[in-house]
């Protein structure tokens, strides 16, 4: 495989011309690039500061429901897991919104398990007016939908849709998704196209790093991103880089992504795509998050809860995954400022979306 036969010379060439060049992305993601992580980081910092300045956008996830009709062997929401299930009603949602607003966040990521009948369009239609009234930027991470449904969500105030492919290798995908509609690899793969055709502003891609060889999955995500950017040039794109950690969710990574590998990955994507938004998860430990921040990250959550109702009742044990950075937003911001970075709470005006 070319990814593993790349030489130091290929990497040096890639460092000369990384922007928009898929061959360069391959070289920068390869094991041969590992001795070049420092020069990659130097370039990544410069490109990020030039494009985004010192700004880091802040958001919080708001979990609407942990109901799910899929079986995925890495996720706490899987339907066979014996956990208490909950879907927020409008009162509970209002209470969650009030807490998040009080903390100063203006950008929200709505998350739910994938349960079409109980947490489908009808439910989204009922909750979105409450959410879009409160926040200037609304992103969603829910089950894949049809183009018309995304259009409708856009009218209800949704600005961004995150849909993570988890892995780009069909055989691996089939192995980890054993029940439910999420088994349809191609339907999920085509989702960003439907989101773009619906005119949604931002599209988020992601892989669960470690389900398969993370270098290969990341490269395939790069190809996907490249295709989308060339086809739907008006959209903005973001990527998320969650790591599958050993012993989390009961399965072990096929190829473990080390901290150094994560740095290589972030820098490779920044060099490949200077305008790409890169989001950093609270799955990572505080010290690592602080050190990763300047390298290419543009958005992060802080003080997150990954359970429905978790801001009101933090210990209800309904989490999707365990958070490694439990610091409140204020502490994260102190670290951010120490590194010369500027937290951005508001970066959009929802009124602009009105018809």
């Amino acid at each position, binding site marked *: 495989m070319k990814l593993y036969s790349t030489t130091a010379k290929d990497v040096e060439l890639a460092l000369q011309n990384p922007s928009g060049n898929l061959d360069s992305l391959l070289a920068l993601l390869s094991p041969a690039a590992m001795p070049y992580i420092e020069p990659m980081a130097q370039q990544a910092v410069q490109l990020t*500061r*030039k*494009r*985004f*300045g*010192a*700004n880091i956008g802040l958001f919080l996830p708001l979990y609407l429901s942990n109901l799910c009709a899929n079986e995925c062997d890495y996720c706490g929401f899987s339907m066979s897991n014996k956990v208490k299930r909950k879907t927020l009603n409008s009162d509970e949602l209002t209470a969650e919104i009030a807490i998040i607003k009080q903390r*100063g966040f*203006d950008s929200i990521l709505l998350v739910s398990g994938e349960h079409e009948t109980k947490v489908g369009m009808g439910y989204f239609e009922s909750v979105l007016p409450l959410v879009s009234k409160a926040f200037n930027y609304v992103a969603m991470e829910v089950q894949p939908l049809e183009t018309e449904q995304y259009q409708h969500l856009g009218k209800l105030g949704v600005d961004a849709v995150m849909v993570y492919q988890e892995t780009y290798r069909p055989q691996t995908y089939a192995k980890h998704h054993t029940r439910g509609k999420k088994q349809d690899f191609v339907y999920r793969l085509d989702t960003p196209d439907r989101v773009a055709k619906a005119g949604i502003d931002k599209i988020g891609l992601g892989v669960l790093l470690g389900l398969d060889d993370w270098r290969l999955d990341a490269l395939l995500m790069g190809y996907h991103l490249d295709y989308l*950017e060339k086809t739907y*040039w*008006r*959209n*903005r794109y973001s990527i998320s880089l969650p790591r599958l950690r050993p012993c989390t969710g009961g399965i072990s990574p096929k190829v473990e992504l080390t901290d150094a590998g994560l740095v290589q990955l972030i820098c490779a994507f920044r060099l490949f795509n200077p*305008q790409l938004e890169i989001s950093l998860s609270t799955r990572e430990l505080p010290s690592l998050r602080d050190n990763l921040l300047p390298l290419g990250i543009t958005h992060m959550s802080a003080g997150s809860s990954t359970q429905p109702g978790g801001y009101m009742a933090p210990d209800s044990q309904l989490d999707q995954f365990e958070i490694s950075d439990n610091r409140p937003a204020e502490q994260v911001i102190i670290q951010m*400022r120490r590194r*010369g*970075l*500027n937290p*951005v*709470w*508001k*970066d*959009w*005006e929802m*009124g*602009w*979306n*009105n018809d």
Partner: protein
Amino acid sequence: MLTIADHQFSSRLFTGTGKFSDHNTMLQAINSSGSQLVTLAMKRIDLTRGHDNLLGPLQSMGVKLLPNTAGARNAKEAIFAAELAYEMLGTKWIKLEIHPDPKYLMPDPIETLIAAQQLCEQGYIVMPYVHADPVLCRRLEEVGCAAVMPLGSPIGSNQGLATETFLRIIIEQASIPVIIDAGIGAPSQACRAMEMGAAAVLVNTAIASSAYPQQMAKCFADAVATGRQAYLAGLGAVNHHADATSPLTGFLTEASINSLTQSVNIKEG
């Protein structure tokens, strides 16, 4: 003095508020730049909470605020942003920015012209950010824009005056101020723009992303002032061929020239 609409500016360096590490650094840089016109993005302004509140300190500095419509993807969104700016800030000055392309942030000329016309009709002081397109700049002047803001190179690229050939035409033709916006990455480039006859330059990334923004802002202020003085003084003509210090016809003595003249007279006689 530079006059735009009914306002006079003694500084021809305009600055932005984005990309700084914190508000103090930004305020110190603006102060050091001597800028009297500062742009700020409407999508960032939040009057409901304390976060991101740039307005108070900026207003206390006495600079004129130029809200911009950055983030708007079409005329409708930009007009909404302008109306919002008027409602929130009480100013009808607006920097019109419409870029549907998030990669290079290239301005959309068609939507920009549509929005500019409507906003001018509504009494706004419209300063549109555009590509260095001489015809578009004329059209924008026709619909009543107070100034045009053509790009030197892509936003935030620090590539300088890549569009110089077209900027020269725009400056030559315009009856309204031409402000070079976007791409200026070094004081020398700002100086060059001013030498060419630009009315002003707008610089943000080059100052904000410098290791020492305050110091860089002062360098830009000096460069802009120097460039303007050079323009007013009149740059020497540029020759594309050499004035030889030892002319090729230097061997011709006065006597030989006289005899040549006499021979011409004899023939004519």
